[in-house]
């Protein structure tokens, strides 16, 4: 079990993690979701004792990482697949890791077999593709047969086969009763992998709930209406307790059903040209929830051109000051 309480990390003037508290339970895959720059990697570094928190603390089964004896036997982590020496073979890399935590040497061959790198074990890690490097990183995380597994963006650079493999792999470890904590900036990926979610943006906790709850909350249904005399309908909907918004000559009514809107339209004499039930995509919904908490915005993408087409101006990724 991983427990963070009031975890805060400040780098100079940047607040990377801001008073973050969450719990990761064993026996399930917990997704750690947030846009790029939200503080996911920093949080994982804090969990592993690589960085010192400015305030708060994070514990693994009640202990700080730096108090653990032979930590690889309890926690297996893959934060960056490139943390290998390019001229050292995969086997040598795993050998020194194993030796440092008094793990039997034959375990090295076992984990190489498990991730499917046996054939290239004596190749230099620098020659590995990103997918192979990820597998090597996973092999390193598995060396000590740990109760807690932590992966930072593990599907990055993997081919579809590799993605399915790691997804099943994490679910199987969780089913064995282990704690699995995996970060991603892709909600669609997490919705397939994780049972539970910890969602952060700009270092702050946005939500902690089951994946199903989050998806339902996030992808709230709405009704799109086009027609004449929509002002009256809009007022009627407002009286009925709905919030409405006008977009591109259409009225969007979140949380309503087509039945209700249709009845109200008839009662107020609105002529309808369209009445559609809409369900937002997961990604849109996620962006909706985290939009105030995105660290880097691409400026200039949403400028509408005079001829009705969208112009893409120079994209300036600019840090948004709080």
């Amino acid at each position, binding site marked *: 079990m991983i427990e963070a309480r009031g975890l805060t990390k400040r780098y100079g003037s940047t607040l990377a993690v801001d008073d973050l508290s969450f719990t990761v339970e064993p026996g399930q895959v917990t997704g750690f979701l947030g846009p790029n720059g939200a503080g996911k990697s920093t949080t994982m570094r804090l969990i592993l004792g690589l960085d010192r928190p400015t305030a708060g603390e994070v514990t693994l089964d009640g202990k700080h990482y730096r108090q653990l004896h032979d930590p690889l036997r309890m926690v297996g982590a893959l934060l960056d697949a490139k943390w290998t020496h390019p001229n*050292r073979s995969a086997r040598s890399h795993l050998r020194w890791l194993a030796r440092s935590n008094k793990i039997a040497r034959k375990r090295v061959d076992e984990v190489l077999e498990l991730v499917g790198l046996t054939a290239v074990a004596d190749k230099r890690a620098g020659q590995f593709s990103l997918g192979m490097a990820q597998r090597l990183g996973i092999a390193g995380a598995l060396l000590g047969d740990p109760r807690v597994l932590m992966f930072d963006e593990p599907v990055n650079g993997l081919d579809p086969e590799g993605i399915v493999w790691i997804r099943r792999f994490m679910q199987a470890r969780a089913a064995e009763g282990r704690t699995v904590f995996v970060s991603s900036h892709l909600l669609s990926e997490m919705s397939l992998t994780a049972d539970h979610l910890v969602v952060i943006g700009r270092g702050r906790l946005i939500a902690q709930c089951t994946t199903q709850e989050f998806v339902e909350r996030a992808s709230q249904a709405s009704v799109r209406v086009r027609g004449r005399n929509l002002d009256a309908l809009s007022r009627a909907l407002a009286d009925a307790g709905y919030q409405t918004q006008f977009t591109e000559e259409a009225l969007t009514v979140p949380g309503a059903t087509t039945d209700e809107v249709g009845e109200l339209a008839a009662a107020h004499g609105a002529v309808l040209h369209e009445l559609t039930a809409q369900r937002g995509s997961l990604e849109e919904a996620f962006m909706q929830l985290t939009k105030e908490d995105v660290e880097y915005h691409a400026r200039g993408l949403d400028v509408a051109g005079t001829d009705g087409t969208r112009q893409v101006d120079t994209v300036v990724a600019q840090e948004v000051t709080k």
Partner: protein
Amino acid sequence: MTLLAVERIKLFSTRSPWWCLALTAVLMLGLSALIAGLASTAELSLATSLAGRGFALMVLLVMAAIAITNEYRFGTIRATFTAVPNRTAVLLAKTVVVALVVGIAGEVLALGAYGIPQLIEPNADLVANTSDEWRFVLGIGPVYALSAVIAIAVGVLVRQTAAAISILLVWVLLVENLVVLIPRVGDDIRSWMPWVASDHFLTAGTGVPGGEGGGFPGELPYGPWGGLAYFAGIAVALLVIALVVAERRDA
């Protein structure tokens, strides 16, 4: 012991230490043999036998610095600190392993460089007779080992290969020799330069002009063993600073 084994695996599972050790051997033995073969018998001395020691020191400083800066460059230092959260223990183990390898290599090569010219020119006066002369030959290993400690401490502090190597080489080759240009106090400052002290330990009483670049004028305020103690003190002090910084700093 476990950590020493880990650092031994790490050091020798990459290529650069092997290349550096091979290059050191070529410089130490090759230069010694070359001078013995080309110079006249009268020109040969213990100093010409060990003429490669300055070059070899440069290569070994680079090797020791790279052993730690590459860990920062490739991120393996984070893998290391994740596997062993006790950073002081890890870095001490690395220092011991690298210093031992460098020290033993230096000692073996110094003996080789001492012996080879005697085979080439049996008539020349190349045998160490006095304890001062033996200190010159056998002191090279310990001086190299302590130099490696300084190189690792600098590597931990600056964390970048180019920066660490620049600092070390500029210091040894330029700073230590150029401080004499400072008026009035230059000579006094130079007396307390670490590698001046280590060279005094090696060459005092052997008639060899001391110091990297040669020709150290005047008397030093310490004897040969005092020089070694001072040099060792500098190495330990730098290492302690590096360990404290590494323990506190975000990895």
